[in-house]
């Protein structure tokens, strides 16, 4: 996954190698983009719009990104810990990147099932 995601609006442009994008969280009409170097940047797009951009720009590689409910888009490569009972999701590269997030129990059940299925089928 060496493609680049470009988020452009008005006089600003954000350009991120897709494999360095850890997650994006919704913040009302804005979204917060978090990269592997732990930098966070707010962009003036709703999460659904960013989801469409990823799909459009990455094509099949977009399947590495998962929309979790209304609040999150995550990069599967960074999923480190899923705890359904505690509604905890930790994204990490096991180096310097570490983010603790929460999501609904139902969506974490689905995420875990999906990751289990990937392991079984690889």
């Amino acid at each position, binding site marked *: 996954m060496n493609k680049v995601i470009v988020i452009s609006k008005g006089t600003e442009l954000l350009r991120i190698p897709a494999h360095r994008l850890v997650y994006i969280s919704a913040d009302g*009409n804005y979204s917060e983009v978090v990269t592997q170097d732990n930098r966070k940047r707010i962009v003036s797009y*709703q999460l*659904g719009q960013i989801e469409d951009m990823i799909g459009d720009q*990455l094509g099949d590689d*977009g*399947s590495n990104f998962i929309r979790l409910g209304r609040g999150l888009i995550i990069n599967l490569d960074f999923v480190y810990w899923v705890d359904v009972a505690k509604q905890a999701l930790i994204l990490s590269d096991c180096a310097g990147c570490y983010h603790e997030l929460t999501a*609904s129990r139902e969506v974490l059940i689905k995420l875990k099932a999906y990751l289990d299925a*990937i392991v079984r089928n690889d």
Partner: protein
Amino acid sequence: MTDKNRDIRDDEFRVIGRSPQHETSTEDVRRRNTGVSIISAIIVLAIGILAIVMWPKDAPEDPNDGVFENAPEVVTPGAIVRLGVETDASFTEKLDTVINDVHLSLYIPHNAKPELTLGVPDRNDKNIILAAQAADIRRDNQKILGAFVLKGEPLAWGLSKKGFCAIIEDKVTVGVSENSPLFEEATEKGGYFFRQYPLVDNGVLVENEQKNKTMRKALCSRAGQIFVAVSETDESMHDFAQALVDLGVENAIYLVGSHSSFGWYIDSAGEKTLFAPDVHRGTYRNENYIVWR
């Protein structure tokens, strides 16, 4: 980028870059690994061309879509499925979820019979798997607010609140009505009845006057199930009721909430947990509870 506000619920999971029909199954993963995506791409392309040809040329823009505020998101309710597990054991199942940023805990009693009690229930009674305060009591004279029937005996007749709960022959009915015949039926059949603020009436939010924010609690019916919903954060009555509507709750009435309300549940491991810290407070003769035992 024509579909800026694609609907998604908080409990939904979607793989980006592929059609929403292909969600979360092991079959998805197999397809991903076997290159079926090429066929999918061809189908999507064909549908896209068809859509361009068929699309009305002068489709009006959404008049509600502004520069600063997007058009309201239209939420299409998903299929209503029962919550929780199937079990023969008697306990209260706790489910946590987030609906529209409202953190909810749902307490689903399994294999237990509901009833009302007057006075604080025996907290050492291990048969009680779920207990929550039901009707409020008047501040001035400590009488029960609204009509109340205890084991067939009417104890109060007020109509100040339109929401009601009737327990007749172990069946709980939650609804909204000024004159429910279930009050009389409860008296005739040795049942129970109390009134509270209505929150959801046949899937529609009911507005209430209370605008303050606090921990909220409700008795809900959804897909044939009865459960207690509690907000884990301080919420207005409106936001709490809206979250219940979005959860698919058909009818809901308020239960005495706030951080000082008393109650507990017993989980599958037999552990008892209080809804709120057991603060020192006075007890009242007419304090009443809905319990499952």
